[in-house]
């Protein structure tokens, strides 16, 4: 538990870790550039693959959007702990007088920033290619909530996978089955949103996303110390 000064110290370290990751990424653009190329390619291929009419678009567009988000996310999350492995910086972080949980939360917030940035760029491309209005509060809320759970659980699997040789394969194999409830709920909720239906119609799916967000934000915080300590 973190109280008073401890809480301030905890969040100060979280902010330092997240800012360090963002600064490093802004300098190299390793994650953003590669992931964006991939995501736009996915959207373009799907756009040309189907003979799109308005009815078909309404049915398949949410799926296409979340395929682009999910696989871009896997690519981005694969990189989350790589900077910490280079020069063994994770050990340096573990030697700091800070709770292990702060390392996890800091890394997750950094990844969330990248994911939201990528999504903010993908959405207008998606709107352009599929002729769909995406600036809807419902769709933005679904995207934000689903991305929080996606990143929360993805960060812990990224920490697990980084110590394996075939980490590019290990992460999606471990991670995608676990995160699938959020992706399925997000596709369903996005579909309702893009069809122009109200908040009330998507309540059940939003509730599922929020429930999994709570689980995925709690369990990784508890297990992270055991994942990083030998």
């Amino acid at each position, binding site marked *: 538990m973190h109280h008073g000064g401890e809480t301030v110290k905890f969040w100060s370290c979280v902010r330092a870790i997240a800012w360090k990751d963002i600064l490093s990424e802004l300098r190299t653009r390793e994650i953003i550039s590669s992931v964006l190329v991939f995501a736009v390619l996915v959207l373009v291929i799907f756009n040309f693959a189907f003979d799109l009419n308005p009815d078909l678009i309404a049915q398949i567009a949410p799926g296409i959007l979340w395929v682009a988000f999910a696989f871009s996310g896997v690519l981005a999350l694969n990189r989350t702990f790589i900077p910490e492995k280079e020069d063994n910086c994770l050990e340096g*972080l573990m030697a700091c*007088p800070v*709770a292990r949980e702060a390392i996890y939360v800091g890394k997750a917030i950094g990844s969330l920033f990248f994911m939201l940035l990528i999504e903010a760029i993908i959405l207008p491309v998606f709107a352009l290619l599929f002729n769909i209005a995406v600036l809807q509060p419902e769709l933005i809320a679904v995207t934000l909530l689903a991305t929080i759970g996606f990143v929360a659980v993805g960060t812990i699997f990224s920490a697990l996978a980084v110590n394996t040789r075939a980490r590019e394969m290990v992460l999606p194999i471990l991670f995608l089955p676990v995160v699938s409830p959020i992706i399925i709920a997000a596709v369903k909720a996005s579909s309702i949103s893009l069809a122009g239906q109200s908040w009330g119609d998507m309540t059940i799916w939003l509730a599922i996303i929020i429930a999994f967000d709570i689980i995925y934000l709690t369990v990784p915080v508890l297990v992270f110390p055991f994942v990083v300590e*030998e």
Partner: protein
Amino acid sequence: MNNVTAPPPPSPAVETVGLSKSFGNFKALRGLDLKIPAGSSLAVFGPNGAGKTTFIKILASIMRPTSGKVLIEGFELKDDAEGIRAKLGLVAHQSYLYGNLSAWENLDFYARMYGVQDRARRIAEVLDLVSMTGRRYDRLSTFSRGMQQRMALARALLHRPSILLLDEPETGLDQQALGAMWDIIRREEAGKRTIIFTSHSFERALSVCDDIIIIERGRLAFRERACNMNLESLKKKYGECTTAVKP
């Protein structure tokens, strides 16, 4: 009659009791008992795989022991690992610094993690100490191995630790860089800081350390004051310990 009682003897800076660590069936440390007085310097020798790095990692609380306990300045490590880590500085084979960030940004990051007061002044101080002020805005990835190790030392000294743990810090350094590194270590807080370092350099240990231990297969095989030894006797003892001790 004077009622003033003598103060209790100070706790050792580091004390390990029955310290053991296993990785599956492999026992890296087997019941290590050590007391290291505050302000002293201890050189830890042993062949590769003897358990030196495991010992340092457990002291730094990067790794948990399988059994036994570690006391730092009288406090058990597992009771307040976060608080105790603030007393420790660690330099290892790798710098623990980020190649994409500048020297200043790296130290600023670690200063925030250690809660260093008056960050800018302290960062400027340690950069000056390791003679890296002129390169403070350059990225770490552009530094030579010697420069990176000096930066690692700056990082480890940033929060003025009372105990400095050095795990083979000499790896990859030339003689000039080695001399500079030890000069920095001895210059800052000379005599007040406890230093524990693993090494393969007998000459260095004899010139900078108060005590010498040899670990073999996770056991304490030998301990002696450095002033009671010379290069020949240390080499001889090392040879005896590393061939005589069996699992």
